């Protein structure tokens, strides 16, 4: 399967199953669809000879054939048996999302956690519950060495002492069990101070700092409970924090909605403030919400991604580039095909833990009672849920079969699929469209910068 497209002046050919990316001239671009269909050479020549010279067409055909023989073009998807065998391995848990506080000091309009409360009550995780969670993780992680623990909420800084105590406890266990904890923190910044920054710089492998972009955009969606905006309070703190981490190992992370479809401006606003690691993603909301992304927004959003990608290439060439998480792609050393096809790990390798210790398949399922899997004291009680998530992969989804992006999104988000279709084995269609566009832009950026490095 081949996916070919034109973007920002580049003709790009992605050989989907090998992951090989080719930048081609017009004649090859036009030859490829014929070759993919298995047309004989004389048909290709006769179909294209009005547009190109015969010799040129023959060269293009020969180049394509060479790539095919080398395994870089027209390759087959023969991974299914390997993935199915891989998925039968015993489940280990390697990552937890700890809901350290089901409470929040902001009242963001789009919050899937409903202002931190997740369809439930306000609560803070006790040290004892958190400790049990870490013990469970160590005990169930098999031979995985890197264990990931994200302090999430609500707003985790509303329960900061417990975060610190859990980090200390985790560190005390590392040597005993030959594990390496990677702690991360997701915060809205309201309570951020120097002491917290210093602690995080020592202990947190990554921090995610929530901000949506321009002041008016951020403040409309991310107000305090009294309605006032959060931008002015958080921006200086985030700037200081990012600098204190040498502009690495963090993301400023925002959400865009129907109300700021010009979100490239928000990404660039964050970059213009000096942030080098930026992540801004589309809101996922019920269609009845006025801020929800609609199908008719897709074309506009795709234009905006194109605009952002072109601007990123320009800035990179000027020596003032930045990273946009959703355009990150590693064409030479990215994840293995097992990782790419077996899904995000929710419900199996990755679990969310509520303040009172309940397990859910991921942070987005918290509060959906039919997905309650067990708790930190008794372990996993609903192995059927675990099995269902284990079986959820690219090959289990009809919509992924002919999609070129399946090696980049790994079948998409199970929670989004469930929200829109009532099943984890479907796919959230708007999300898919946007994901495909992002993959195209990400590859175009690589093509543009590869050209640069040659000159």
């Amino acid at each position: 399967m081949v996916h070919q497209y034109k973007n920002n002046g580049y003709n790009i050919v992605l050989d989907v199953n090998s992951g090989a990316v080719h930048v081609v001239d017009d004649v090859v671009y036009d030859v490829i669809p014929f070759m993919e269909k298995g047309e004989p050479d004389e048909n290709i020549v006769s179909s294209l000879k009005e547009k190109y010279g015969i010799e040129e067409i023959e060269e293009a055909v020969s180049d394509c054939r060479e790539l095919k023989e080398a395994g870089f073009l027209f390759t087959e998807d023969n991974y299914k048996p390997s993935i199915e065998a891989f998925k039968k391995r015993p489940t280990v848990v390697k990552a937890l999302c700890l809901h350290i506080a089901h409470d929040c000091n902001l009242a963001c309009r789009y919050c899937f956690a409903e202002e931190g409360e997740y369809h439930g009550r306000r609560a803070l995780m006790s040290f004892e519950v958190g400790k049990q969670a870490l013990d469970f993780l160590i005990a169930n992680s098999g031979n995985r060495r890197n264990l990931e623990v994200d302090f999430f909420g609500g707003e985790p800084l509303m329960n900061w002492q417990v975060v610190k105590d859990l980090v200390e406890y985790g560190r005390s266990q590392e040597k005993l069990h030959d594990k390496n904890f990677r702690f991360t923190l997701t915060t809205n910044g309201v309570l951020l101070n120097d002491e917290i920054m210093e602690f995080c710089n020592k202990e947190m492998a990554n921090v995610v700092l929530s901000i949506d972009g321009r002041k008016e955009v951020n403040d409309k969606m991310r107000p305090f409970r009294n309605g006032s905006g959060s931008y002015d309070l958080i921006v200086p703190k985030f700037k200081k924090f990012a600098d204190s981490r040498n502009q690495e190992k963090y993301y400023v992370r925002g959400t865009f909605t129907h109300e700021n479809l010009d979100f490239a401006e928000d990404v660039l606003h964050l970059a213009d403030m000096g942030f080098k690691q930026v992540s801004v993603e589309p809101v996922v909301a019920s269609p009845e919400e006025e801020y929800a992304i609609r199908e008719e927004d897709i074309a506009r959003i795709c234009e905006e991604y194109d605009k952002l990608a072109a601007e990123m290439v320009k800035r990179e060439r000027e020596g003032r580039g930045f990273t946009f998480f959703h355009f990150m792609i590693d064409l030479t050393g990215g994840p293995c095909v097992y990782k790419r096809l077996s899904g995000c790990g929710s419900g199996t390798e990755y679990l969310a833990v509520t303040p009172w210790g309940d397990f859910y398949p991921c942070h987005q399922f918290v509060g959906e009672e039919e997905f309650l899997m067990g708790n930190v004291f008794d372990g996993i009680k609903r192995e059927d849920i675990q099995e269902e998530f284990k079986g959820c992969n690219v090959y289990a989804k009809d919509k992924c079969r002919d999609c070129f992006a399946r090696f980049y999104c790994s079948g998409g988000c199970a929670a989004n699929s469930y929200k829109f279709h009532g099943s984890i084995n479907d796919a959230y269609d708007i999300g898919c469209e946007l994901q495909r566009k992002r993959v195209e832009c990400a590859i175009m950026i690589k093509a543009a910068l590869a050209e640069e490095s040659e000159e």
Partner: protein
Amino acid sequence: MKHIKTLNTQTLQNTLKKGGCGECQTSCQSACKTSCTVGNQSCENNK
């Protein structure tokens, strides 16, 4: 090759052999909490 520039020669097939160690980052632990962006995680098996 006159008409084609290939950006990468490390193919997905090659990763079948030694892949699957599971040490790489879980995607939602990085910077997405509402989408699935597995393709941009780094492999930790070649370090």
